[in-house]
């Protein structure tokens, strides 16, 4: 029994190592793709901003003593000016806002990937009653309006980002689970899985060696796209004032700008700044997700790139190709035009 447990642990360790290696491989692939590289660079920048926010931001937006005159326009001391209501430095707020967006986005994205994968694999691989139960749950989840329910739950249990993450995860896994389930159904019936079953493979073996690696690519891609989607949703909730009231987030900055008269006084930078923050974060994650889709789905890549190849065709080279296929050219009898008999 102990040996079996050891073997299982070893297997699990190997799998985890394999997953890490796969992720590293992906990052390399992304880096090699021009669009993916842009996404990677921006995400890295955002992560740096989030971690080293106190070092990068010129002021601490939480510190009441550092607040300047209210409603300053952008200048060298206040890159993006200050807020009309409290006199906080907008640039510093922007830097600090990265934290909420990234944390909510990443934590939710990864949790959804886990939950969605587990549910999808169970529904697809185990099937039967488990499948029915999960798919019925998905159907119910799909008709409940998410935003209103989030508002109700924050009203009941208080406003916090933990709550928001919880609700996002609770509702976010359904779509992923569906996709994973249908992929698992395909993989499960693949002949190589049947061959492994014939050789006496256990369910664990099939799961870890065939099914999970088969869906892992989809998972990684989906995580990136979910992160992007969650960041937008988080900004919306914060905008409605449903986020943690003490934290600085881009959505809340927008709400403050709207409520604080940025529109009225023409302080456009106060609106644009958090908007650009949201845009950059979402855009870079989405880019990564889309590039991954392109890498994973070679057919799609081919169809889009074939036109580029076509545009850049070297005409003289193509003429040579055509000429090389002529009957005479292959014979080595190079005839000049007009010399044919």
């Amino acid at each position: 029994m102990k040996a079996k447990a050891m073997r299982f642990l070893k297997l699990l360790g190997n799998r985890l190592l394999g997953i890490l290696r796969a992720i590293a491989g992906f990052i390399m692939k992304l880096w090699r793709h021009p669009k993916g590289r842009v996404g990677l660079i921006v995400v890295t920048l955002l992560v740096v901003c989030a971690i080293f926010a106190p070092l990068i931001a010129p002021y601490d937006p939480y510190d009441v003593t550092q607040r300047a005159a209210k409603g300053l326009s952008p200048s060298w001391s206040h890159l993006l000016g200050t807020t009309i209501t409290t006199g906080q430095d907008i640039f510093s707020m922007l830097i600090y806002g990265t934290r909420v967006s990234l944390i909510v986005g990443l934590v939710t994205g990864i949790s959804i990937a886990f939950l969605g994968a587990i549910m999808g694999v169970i529904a697809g691989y185990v099937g039967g009653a488990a499948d029915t139960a999960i798919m019925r749950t998905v159907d119910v989840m799909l008709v409940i309006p998410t935003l209103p329910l989030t508002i109700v739950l924050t009203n009941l249990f208080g406003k916090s980002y933990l709550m928001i993450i919880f609700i996002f995860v609770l509702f976010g896994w359904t779509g992923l689970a569906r996709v994973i389930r249908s992929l698992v159904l395909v993989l499960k019936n693949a002949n190589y899985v049947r061959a492994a079953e014939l050789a006496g493979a256990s369910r664990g073996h099939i799961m870890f060696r065939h099914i999970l690696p088969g869906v892992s690519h989809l998972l990684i891609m989906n995580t990136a796209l979910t992160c992007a989607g969650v960041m937008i949703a988080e900004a919306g909730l914060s905008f409605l004032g449903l986020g943690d009231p003490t934290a600085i987030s881009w959505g809340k900055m927008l709400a403050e700008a709207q409520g604080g008269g940025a529109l009225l006084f023409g302080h456009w930078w106060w609106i644009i700044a958090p908007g650009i923050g949201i845009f950059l974060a979402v855009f870079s994650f989405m880019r990564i997700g889309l590039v991954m889709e392109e890498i994973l789905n070679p057919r799609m890549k081919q169809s889009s790139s074939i036109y580029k190849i076509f545009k850049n065709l070297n005409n003289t080279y193509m003429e040579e190709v055509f000429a090389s296929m002529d009957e005479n050219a292959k014979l080595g009898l190079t005839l000049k035009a007009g010399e044919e008999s």
Partner: protein
Amino acid sequence: MKKSYLIKRIIYAFFIFLIVMTLNFFIPRIGVVDPAERYYPPQGNMTEIEYEIIKQFTREQYGFDVSNFQQYLNYVSGLFQGDLGTSFRSGNPKVSQLIGERLPWTLVLSVTNLLISLFIGLIIGTIAAWKRGRWQDTTLLNLSTISMALPAFFIALILSFYFGFELEWFPAYTNPNMVAQFDWSWEAIRVVMYNAALPIVSMSIGGIIGYGQGTRNAVIAVTNEDFILTARAKGLSRNQVIFKHTLRNAMLPIVTSLGMSISGLIGGAVIIEQIFNWNGMGTLFLEANNTNDYPLMMGIMLFMSAFAIVANLVTELFYSLLDPRVTVGERR
């Protein structure tokens, strides 16, 4: 086959409704010790006994004085008589009445938005697919990644800032008298259109590009199918191939996403309504949230869910009309 399929879908939709209804009843009761306390928070100038009396009065008034199970039965029987509950707000209006007042205003926004998005999206999507690989297509692709990363409420803020405050072409806030004064005269309709312009535009930018990209992908996927080659080998003209063979098949995935849009028609405009101060379901819900008006909140939630269920059902049946294969192998 067709009829039994219909019956099966309806039974299933009803089953989903029962679950949602039950959840809807229990969600506000999780973690809340006494609903009356929520409704009527303790106030400093009140003695304990006075507060207790008021709470008891509240309980009786809103039917919290019986057991949870009895409350559930009352709730269900009320529902099937079309009663979504009674709001906490003064005058105790019926939830259904409040919804009835606000719903048309939300639909003005969201239905117009959906129609615009779908119509323009279909056109530019088809063009992009047609001009595949050329600038029309690449522009759409780039726009779609950009627009997906721009939240609609940010676009709304920019629009309201520029066209509302700077240029003053359109109202940045809805005229609160608009609703009360609406009398179906041309002038009133013009006022509504004028006020609705900015919200609708800010919502439909993303919608147009989303539907455009979706259409483009669907059309291209169908173009690669063998039967398009057959149609061309029959000598059909380009237009015949596109309109008779390609678009009809490309509509299938679009109908699916259309169904999702329809089920979100009511709840999808909360933030936009809030920005433009538009008196629709979204603002009604936020008002209810601010006053802890649970019956109203849950009533709206249930209404939205039921709407989504019906929308899904209709989409599914519509899909089965478009695709004759559905009744054989069920679409999932």
